[in-house]
């Protein structure tokens, strides 16, 4: 691209662009700092012992390193954290597998009534969780699932379906048909095509689906609190709240509460931190629009 402009104009433009980049960097740094300040405070407070937390200078970050908070917090919430791991593993195993099967059908298989069935999935996006909260509770009681993890696992797998099927489908469609067709000609059954050809090629989006389910299971507070009677079966959000309400953030045990937050989010931060590239890539690939 050759531009015929007087030298001064070009230089001015370049200077302006550099100034623009500079202000963009500053804005970005400010936004990052604002996003992270609650987390920094959480981390700093989790290491302070109670008296220091309530009376000391709140702006004094990382002035104390009291690991005892973590010991106490762990004994308070490790049960709910382990419960969450079990529930999330089962929900993801069911939810992602079933969604992948469904998405494969929508992406690669031709059958009568397909567009109608697909519309049924789109329509699901219009059903808010608040509408199904009460009847789902009653239904779980009818099934005898009250106070059981099945009342978490099956609804979690089910509510993840519309989103997962939609994002999986758009990625499964990108697998060239010739590849699938040649596998079929080699005698592969459809289930083998999905397992050995499509799944390996689309592993990043399957991982993204897993992460999305984990985020929503970790974050769900209302449903476990409603459907589980024993607090020993709570998953992490409800378990945290149970632990916190027994202590309070501004009491002598405040540090333990913040330590509990850190422990509760650590596994999720680790999982998503390690797989960030796939997660962000999968979510920004352009499939999220209406």
């Amino acid at each position, binding site marked *: 691209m050759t531009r015929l402009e007087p030298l001064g104009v070009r230089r001015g433009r370049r200077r302006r662009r550099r100034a623009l980049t500079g202000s963009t960097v500053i804005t970005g740094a400010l936004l990052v700092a604002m996003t992270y300040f609650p987390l920094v405070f959480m981390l700093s407070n989790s290491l302070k012992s109670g008296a220091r937390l309530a009376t000391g200078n709140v702006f004094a970050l990382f002035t104390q390193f009291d690991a005892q908070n973590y010991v106490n917090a762990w004994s308070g919430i490790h049960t709910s954290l382990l419960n969450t791991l079990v529930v999330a593993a089962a929900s993801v195993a069911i939810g992602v597998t079933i969604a992948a099967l469904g998405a494969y059908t929508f992406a690669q298989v031709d059958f009568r009534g397909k567009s109608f069935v697909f519309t049924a999935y789109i329509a699901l996006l219009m059903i808010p*969780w608040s509408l199904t909260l009460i009847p789902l509770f009653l239904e779980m009681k009818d099934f005898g699932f009250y106070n059981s993890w099945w009342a978490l696992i099956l609804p*979690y797998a089910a509510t993840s*379906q519309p989103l997962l099927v939609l994002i999986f489908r758009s990625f499964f469609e990108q697998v060239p048909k010739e590849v699938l067709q040649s596998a079929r000609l080699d005698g592969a059954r459809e289930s083998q095509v999905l397992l050995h050809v499509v799944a390996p090629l689309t592993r990043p989006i399957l991982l993204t689906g897993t992460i999305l389910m984990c985020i929503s299971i970790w974050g769900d507070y209302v449903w476990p609190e409603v459907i589980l009677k024993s607090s020993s079966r709570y998953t992490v959000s409800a378990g945290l709240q149970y632990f916190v309400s027994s202590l309070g953030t501004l009491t002598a045990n405040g540090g333990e509460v913040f330590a509990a*937050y850190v422990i509760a989010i650590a596994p999720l931060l680790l999982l998503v931190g390690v797989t960030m590239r796939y997660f962000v890539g999968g979510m*920004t690939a352009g499939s999220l629009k209406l």
Partner: protein
Amino acid sequence: MSMAGVAATGESARQQTQHSSGQQVGASARGSKHGGRPRSRPLARRRNGLRLNRAAAVFVLPSMLLIGIFTYYPAVRSLIGGFYSWNGFSAPQYVGLSQFNEYFTSPTFGVEAKNVVFLVLGWLFITLVAQFTAAEVVAHLPRKLGNIAKYLFALPIVLPPVVLIDVWAYMFNPTDGLLNKIFNAFGLAGPNWLGNEHLALVSILLIGFPWISNLGFLIFLGGIQNLPRELMEASALDGASGLRRWLHVDAPLLIPQFRVAFILGGLYMAQNFVPILLLTNGGPGNATMVPGLDMYEQAFQNDQYGYGMAIGTLLFIAMLAFTLFTMRVLRPRT
């Protein structure tokens, strides 16, 4: 249970596949956009695999079973349940529209409606501005910095709402909270954030400031990154710059993203009563009462399941109207 609510149409993906091969027009394009128009399929395809292929339609059955039992059935049950008075023990009693009337004439209906509208509009405004700004900043940063910023903004998406709410509750504390310590540092007396009836609802909105780390950020970023580059360069050469370029070139192309973010954000806030449940429980007085919390309390504290489902149905209708309205107003202009 909060993630049912994003739509992915995969349009760009579909276009790519259509380029990549000539013989498979039938299968992928027929499903959605192009309707069920009959097309003559190449003979080879019809012979070698369609029958086998069609058998795989059963793959969708487990997923359909799951959504049928755990989403569609409860949804229908909820729509019917609003017409029955039921305490969970004795037999349900058909009461017609009386529970809906009861809600409309209840003393808290007015404040609940006002609060939910305030929360939804306020939330949409602050989150869309914040998330879109952050996405633009990331897109305009030099590549390496942009990637770092992108990951830094995306990471807190994983934070459970309960943690965010509790940390903010600590900051809101009138005597020892962080916000009022900042006020004190400037020699000002900080307000009672959650205890003041005029301020409590605003405080609820403040939770999560600066509101960037949300799905909306990724939606906008995806949209901005996938803007056609030639078009951007052409408009830059034409001398369009800054705000004008954004208004006339970028913004119209990003309407699909705005539409999703708007609908998702609105539906999220319309039923998000968890911060209110945990921090104010509707108070002080009824100042922060919202329909979702009312529904929850009627069902799970007062055993008024039928009445709760009536409120849930009304909330659903309002949300549906909001969605349809948004879909109409934010139509992609072609």
